[in-house]
């Protein structure tokens, strides 16, 4: 294959990667935040103590994190079919991507929130703030730099996971690299996808760092 033949393959694959990563990131951010907050506030002595729920949540998150993504993707095919109506294609890949990334991000959210000075929470309670205010205006807001850094790491992990989307008939740069670069020995395709993936990851990291830095007031 000549470079002229390679380039037309790259753009759609890049778009697919970005699409899968983008949509999965959106759902992961929302649900990961929710579970991360719950992990912190439901613990004993927390804002909303519910130790049994906390234990269950902890176990679920750990199970989610211990499954290799490739296995998770195949294992939840029935669930994927319920959600998107099919188990094949880019949309179908988004479901396991999200399911795999949520526990990952939830733990990072938990870590970021635990970094918030408990003295600030006590001060807010002493002011008569509600739980909702404490979560929204104190915990999440104070943890913003950590939440953004965590999301950056998660997005990059998601980009990595999309490489396996081909397994369930999804596309993307990873799939391109496997089908052309590996199975057909087209090293130009392999090189091009690797370079593109590196560029995307570097960009994501740079943007994440920039935003996190903007949110840090030190």
């Amino acid at each position, binding site marked *: 294959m000549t470079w002229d033949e390679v380039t037309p393959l790259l753009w759609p694959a890049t778009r697919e990667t970005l699409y899968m990563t983008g949509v999965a990131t959106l759902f992961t951010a929302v649900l990961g935040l929710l579970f991360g907050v719950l992990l912190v506030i439901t613990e004993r002595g927390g804002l909303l103590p519910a130790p049994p729920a906390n234990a269950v949540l902890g176990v679920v998150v750990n199970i989610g994190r211990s499954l290799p993504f490739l296995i998770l993707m195949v294992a939840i095919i029935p669930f994927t079919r319920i959600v998107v109506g099919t188990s094949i294609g880019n949309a179908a890949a988004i479901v396991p991507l999200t399911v795999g990334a949520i526990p990952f991000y939830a733990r990072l959210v938990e870590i970021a929130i635990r970094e918030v*000075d408990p*003295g*600030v929470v*006590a*001060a*807010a*309670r*002493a*002011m*008569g*703030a*509600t739980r909702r*205010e404490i979560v929204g*205006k*104190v915990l999440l*807001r*104070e943890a*913003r730099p950590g939440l953004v850094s965590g999301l950056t790491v998660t997005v990059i992990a998601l980009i990595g996971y999309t490489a396996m989307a081909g397994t369930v008939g999804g596309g993307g740069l990873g799939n391109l690299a496997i089908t052309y670069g590996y199975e057909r020995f087209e090293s130009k395709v392999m090189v091009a996808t690797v370079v593109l993936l590196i560029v995307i990851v570097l960009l994501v990291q740079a943007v994440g760092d920039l935003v996190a830095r903007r*949110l840090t*007031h*030190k």
Partner: protein
Amino acid sequence: MIQIEKLRKVYRARGREVTAVDGVDLTVPEGEIFGVLGRSGAGKSTLLRCVNLLERPDEGRVLIDGRDLLALRGAELRRARQGIGMIHQHFGLLGSRTVAGNVAFPLEVMGVPRAERRHRVAELLELVGLTEHARAHPARISGGQKQRVGIARALAGRPKVLLSDEATSALDPETTASILELLRDLNRRLGLTVLLITHEMDVVKRICDSAAVMRDGRFTESGPVTGLLARPGSELARGLFPLPPVTPRAGSTVVEVTFVGGVTDQPFVSALARKYSLDVNILGGAVETVGGGRVGRLQLELPGDPSANAAQLAFLRDAGLAVEVKTPITDTEASAADADTSAAEGGARGPERGSGADGADGADGADGADGADGAVAAGEEETR
């Protein structure tokens, strides 16, 4: 007004029970500053957190302006808390908000409309002298300025009552003095009732009307500061005016004389010497300004056994002085007494070793050590 009745708080962890507050009674009349002095682990932090129910006491009552807080739940309790200001050792400021944003926070919680909020924030920042730092973030200002933000924030809801949790313990002596001055000033101008906890003698000396010494969850002494200082054997007096331990020689009497207020103006030592033709030896002493009045302690040595000095001691007592006679002791007792004194003084001034008995107080352990050392140094300087 703050009234606390028979307050008890027990922590239970892994089958162990720790009584952090063990039956404390306390009244702070309106417009007064009451200081609770104690080491970390004494339970004072827990006591304070029980006043606005950050910790729920197991027994007893907490009344703010006659209202029983323990009867309140949910929204009612939150509203009551809005009327109780609190300042913290480590300030508890939101790092993500500016100085003005931090002061606005309680106003948001109270549901004050934006325009009014802005106005009130400006007013509060002016009150604590931080107008030009309104747009700075907490990381960019000094510790003293941070505590001023804390104070402005605590006053946002125009509280009648202010709780201070070691507010100056993380600050250097000069900054401490300026923050204490601000608190005193606000107390006078706004008629603010203040309950503060501290491990620094200096805080009690500078601004408290009344004080209590807390140990193992209980008050060992409590009352108006000048009254406590004049009381023989007072831990507060010993901490504030540390006198060197002495062993009276045979045939002499050592007395520790505490004088408060107007008594200081009388030349009682020379009057005593002249009246009884005595050679009075001054072994040690300290004079301080406490609560606007002069208070001091003197260690005097008079010739003759205490029994021979009955008239002289009566003379001193009649002059309005608190007189404590150091009893002559044998050598073996002397060493025991020495150990005792150092233990007592360590108790009043020194940092606590080992783990704090109660969880809530544990946090101020590390800083406590610093502050307490400072207090010792200051105390020694005053003795010289």
